[in-house]
């Protein structure tokens, strides 16, 4: 909200309080000031001049040549194109060197042979209005040579207050409310303002019917003889300062009263209303109306309407209807000042996306006693501006409302305890009185009378009074204290412990970079991954079309940015710890199932032909996950083909790690389906091997843990030997591995596959596997004889697998 410093001066004496000081104090005691700016700073550079002479330009019909006195020794010669310029006028002169809005710098020039040393400005050139038909003629009393800002009273500062910090303060949505805060902060009185109705005639009160509790009070005042004339400069100036362009006197006054007291109001042309008066009712299903902005609105029964007869003429508290616009010629008006239910106004304005100055105020819960004061304020100001207006009848004031003013019990002890500061009673009561609360000693402490302006929303509990005292006393005057309490270590948190260990292992030994992603997954990506048809939690108001879905797992997020990263790096290793959500299949309103996951992706340039058999992204990622599970102390796990691989996975190359003891599936590792590479930008230059893994943190937390694995160190040296075998392609390496174990009869300490070879020397449909084997006994030093026995048994077992030992 914009607040004018000069406007505040109408309500309180600001002598000795600079705009900057004021802002600082408002910030510390009331609400956040977001900024302060000098209003129209160029008006301080433009000066008042008096046109001494005006003669037609010798060479141009529409131009005149003027001499203008700006209070300096020599008058200025200025060529002017405005038709209304004339000798004797006081005008706004921008001299050579002055910069006007739009970075327009005034230069000395020759216009058709006549020298011109400045410019006589129009209202539009000074950004004070739209009028550019002629120059701005200043009032006669303007002093020659004075800055225009001072001469016309536009020397002002505009203070911007954060609306959010006023959410709970309907009383601060007008200048008088802010002034009341200043009064409390500086202990100064508010200037008096009369809220008495001007006298009225004895005509019939205007008929007004309220048919719904959504309107608790409605005042209608008939006004005759008002003219939509131009507003006086003081009014235009104040409105301009807070960003409102002047329209005409009646519209301006309506805005002024709202911005002065915080009470929105509306004027209707009585000629445009039906003779049976105003009715306030809820809209009917299927009803429509066109608002002032020309939009046709579909109404709902939750919308509150002001109707003439049965015809809607305003969307209550939000915007008038098109037909009710007050024209230039109207002389019979009806002024509406009402109180509408905040939730009703808010619901309609949110639904229609129609936020107005009025709706912003109504939704904050306005004081129902305010309409009378606002109505009187409007009527008095109008009469000042147009002494001929008449109020033919007493105002109609209908509705069921009660004054919300109430009394709270204040225990000064509570204030001291909750603020943590020994503030004496006198200071507490003085602050509350300055804020407009009534304070009287009572048995329990003090009876505090809360004024109606603070009663609708803000001050309801003793705690609310604590805040009132604290903020005016200033929180900065409260010294810090430290809590005294028994500190016991918080209970162990297995999930956090596990996640940290996982992150550290992957970022450390795994050399993965940790990333964090948005929870939204793009439809286009899901479609590519074939996951679009899976049930997802969906957002109804996404940031962009196609970003409605919340991810079910982390893998899609990791695949999304792969192309960009692969463009930069040959080897991309990323992981993310995050959540996935599965909607309840029965009821979308039930809370979705939450999954705690870690996703990993390894994408690299394709391994060359000479690469080791296990130097591929898939093997390496499987290795990382195996190491990770081991590091996280999961009980023994084994890998098996995933019975239902994720949709992005290669249908054959997908494995899951299963806890051997419990059968829990802890992780899945798979190659990315080769059919997806092109769509994900991983072909051509970016052709990649891509492996993806997902680790279930939930499953890991439930699965059994292994104990310590320490084994005493071997006492006898072992024998190391290499064996190579050729066997049919279809035989799994695991079978060879078991054969080695079996052949060793308990003496195989280690068997590591180090080569996998296919080629002419082993023949078509066959492969060769080579192992480093360590034989070791806990009872004796093994000899060459033991090695021979092992080889003999192994050869036999390999034979059973259809293979043979190769002598290397």
């Amino acid at each position, binding site marked *: 909200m914009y607040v004018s410093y000069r406007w505040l001066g109408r309500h309180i004496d600001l002598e000795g309080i600079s705009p900057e000081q004021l802002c600082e104090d408002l*910030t*510390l005691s*009331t*609400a*956040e000031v977001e900024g302060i700016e000098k209003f129209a700073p160029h008006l301080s550079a433009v000066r008042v001049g008096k046109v001494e002479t005006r003669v037609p330009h010798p060479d141009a019909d529409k131009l005149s040549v003027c001499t203008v006195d700006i209070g300096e020794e020599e008058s200025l010669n200025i060529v002017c194109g405005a038709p209304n310029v004339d000798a004797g006028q006081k005008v706004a002169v921008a001299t050579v060197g002055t910069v006007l809005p739009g970075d327009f710098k005034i230069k000395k020039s020759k216009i058709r042979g006549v020298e011109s040393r400045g410019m006589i400005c129009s209202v539009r050139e000074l950004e004070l209005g739209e009028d550019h038909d002629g120059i701005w003629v200043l009032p006669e009393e303007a002093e020659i040579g004075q800055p225009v800002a001072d001469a016309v009273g536009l020397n002002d500062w505009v203070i911007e207050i954060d609306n959010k910090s*006023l959410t*709970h303060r309907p009383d601060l949505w007008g200048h008088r409310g802010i002034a009341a805060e200043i009064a409390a902060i500086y202990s100064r009185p508010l200037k008096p303002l009369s809220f008495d109705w001007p006298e009225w005639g004895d005509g019939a009160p205007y008929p007004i019917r309220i048919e719904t509790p959504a309107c608790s009070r409605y005042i209608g005042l008939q006004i005759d003889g008002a003219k939509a004339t131009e507003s006086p400069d003081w009014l235009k100036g104040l409105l301009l300062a807070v960003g409102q362009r002047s329209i005409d006197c009646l519209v301006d006054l309506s805005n002024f009263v709202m911005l002065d007291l915080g009470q929105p109001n509306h004027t209707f042309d009585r000629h445009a209303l039906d003779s049976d008066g105003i009715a306030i009712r809820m809209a009917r299903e299927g009803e429509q109306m066109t608002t002032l902005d020309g939009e046709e609105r579909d109404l709902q029964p939750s919308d509150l309407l002001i109707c003439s007869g049965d015809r809607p003429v305003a969307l209550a508290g939000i915007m008038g209807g098109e037909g009710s616009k007050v024209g230039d010629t109207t002389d019979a008006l009806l002024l509406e000042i009402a109180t509408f239910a905040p*939730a009703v106004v*808010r*619901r309609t304005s949110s639904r229609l996306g129609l936020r107005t100055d009025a709706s912003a105020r109504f*939704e*904050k819960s306005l004081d129902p006693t305010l309409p009378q004061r606002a109505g009187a304020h409007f009527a008095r100001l109008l009469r000042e501006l147009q002494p001929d207006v008449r109020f033919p009848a007493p105002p109609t004031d209908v509705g069921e409302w009660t004054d919300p003013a109430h009394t709270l019990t204040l225990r000064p002890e509570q204030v001291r305890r*909750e*603020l*943590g*500061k020994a503030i004496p009673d006198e200071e507490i009561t003085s602050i509350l009185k300055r804020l407009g609360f009534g304070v009287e000693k009572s048995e329990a402490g003090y009876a505090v009378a809360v004024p109606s302006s603070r009663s609708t929303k803000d001050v309801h509990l003793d*705690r609310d009074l*604590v*805040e009132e005292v*604290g*903020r005016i006393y200033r*929180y*900065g005057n*409260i010294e*810090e*204290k*430290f*809590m005294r*309490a028994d*500190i*016991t270590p*918080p209970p162990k*948190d297995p*999930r956090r412990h596990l996640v*940290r260990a996982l*992150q*550290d292992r992957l970022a450390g030994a795994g050399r993965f*970079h*940790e*990333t*964090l992603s948005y*929870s939204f997954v793009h439809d286009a990506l899901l479609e590519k991954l074939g996951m679009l048809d899976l049930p997802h939690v*969906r*957002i*109804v*108001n996404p*940031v962009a079309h196609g970003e409605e879905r*919340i991810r079910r797992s982390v893998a899609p997020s990791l695949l*999304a*940015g792969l192309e*960009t*990263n692969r463009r*930069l*790096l040959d080897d991309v290793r*990323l992981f993310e710890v995050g959540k996935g*959500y599965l909607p309840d299949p029965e009821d979308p*309103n039930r*809370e*979705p199932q*939450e999954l705690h996951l870690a996703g990993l992706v390894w994408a690299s340039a394709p391994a060359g032909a000479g690469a080791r058999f296990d130097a591929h992204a898939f093997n390496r990622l499987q290795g990382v996950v195996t190491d990770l599970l081991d590091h996280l102390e999961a009980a023994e796990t084994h890998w098996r083909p995933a019975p239902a691989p994720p949709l992005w996975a290669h249908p054959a190359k997908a494995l899951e790690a299963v806890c051997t003891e419990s059968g829990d599936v802890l992780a899945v590792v798979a190659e990315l389906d080769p059919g997806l590479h092109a769509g994900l930008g991983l072909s051509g230059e970016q052709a990649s091997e891509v492996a993806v893994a997902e680790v279930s943190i939930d499953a890991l937390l439930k699965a059994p843990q292994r104990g310590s694995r320490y084994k005493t160190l071997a006492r006898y040296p072992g024998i190391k030997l290499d064996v190579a075998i050729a066997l049919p392609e279809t035989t799994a390496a695991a079978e060879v591995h078991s054969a080695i174990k079996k052949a060793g009869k308990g003496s195989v300490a280690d068997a590591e596959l180090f080569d996998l070879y296919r080629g002419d020397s082993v023949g078509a449909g066959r492969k060769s596997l080579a192992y480093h084997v360590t034989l070791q006994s806990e009872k004796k030093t093994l000899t060459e004889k033991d090695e021979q026995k092992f080889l003999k048994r192994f050869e036999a077992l390999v034979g059973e697998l259809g293979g043979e030992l190769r002598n290397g």
Partner: protein
Amino acid sequence: MSDPESGDAGNDSSAPTLAEAEAKILACESSEALKEVEREYVGKQGVVARLLASIPDAPPEERPEVGKQANILKKGVQQAIQARQQGLADARVATEREGQGFDPSLPPPRPQRGSLHPLTQVTRELEDLFQSMGYRILDGPEIETDYYNFEALNIPADHPARDSHDTFFCEGDGHLVLRTHTSPVQIRALENLEPPLRVVIPGKVFRHESTDASHDHTFHQMEGLVVDRDISVAHLIGAMKTLLRGIFDRDLEVRLRPGYFPFVEPGFELDARCPFCEEGCRVCKRTRWIELLPCGLVHPNVLRAGGVDPEEWGAFAFGLGLSRLVMLRHAIDDVRHLLGGDIRFLEQF
């Protein structure tokens, strides 16, 4: 050099001498050459072996002398070879010590490394700080119910404060939302734990905002809640100063000013003196204050919603923008980098 093969013609004229062998050994410049000499003298068919083989042919009275000479020769040669080997090794070490060809400016190869996300790093640091002060760390769902996200936090339906929350709504009857703050976990904590309690809740939150370099629709927060008897604003100030000291490693001047959040009463914004400037800078928008911590005494309605009697217990709560803190700490120019997944960003931390 004498040819041992031709030396057996007469045993008086050309008997191999130790002196000769030693000279040969001394002339060797490599261990290969030494091996050669070793083979020549003490190898299977070497001089010594042939000498010993010639014993049966010698007159019986000379045989012991021939044997003795052979042994002297063998020992002498072996000793000389060993000495020469040591000499060569010493010379090699001496040469290496000269360090020829060493370029001290050669760039070292760096090991490949991984990295933890800067948000993880800051979150951990704060978790550790809070744990050291007896706080428990809690987690909560990112998809929340209207009740926990708003209603129980004293933000009923149609409350205008809902505007500033720019909420993402889930499909359905509208009661599921992406949580707009970590505050709902306050209620869950009050429901599930017995006071007194101290908890912090780090997590991801969502606001339907248009994004730019300083705004994103998804960001990270850390919420704190302390419930105890006799909690005052003075305690809150003390706790916040301790927290800031933990974050910035020094005492920063702070100021507490009114701030409106429906779930606290009174509510504050805590500003700290800009740690980056003396005169005003871009970070503090030239005000010399940075808005860091919204906080306040927990509203009695919120305690009640969590099943805690506000007559018996007091509480304060605070919120910390983790994303903002990361940006401040590393002077990151665009908040969207945080969740952008670009390795060029991630690998810097």
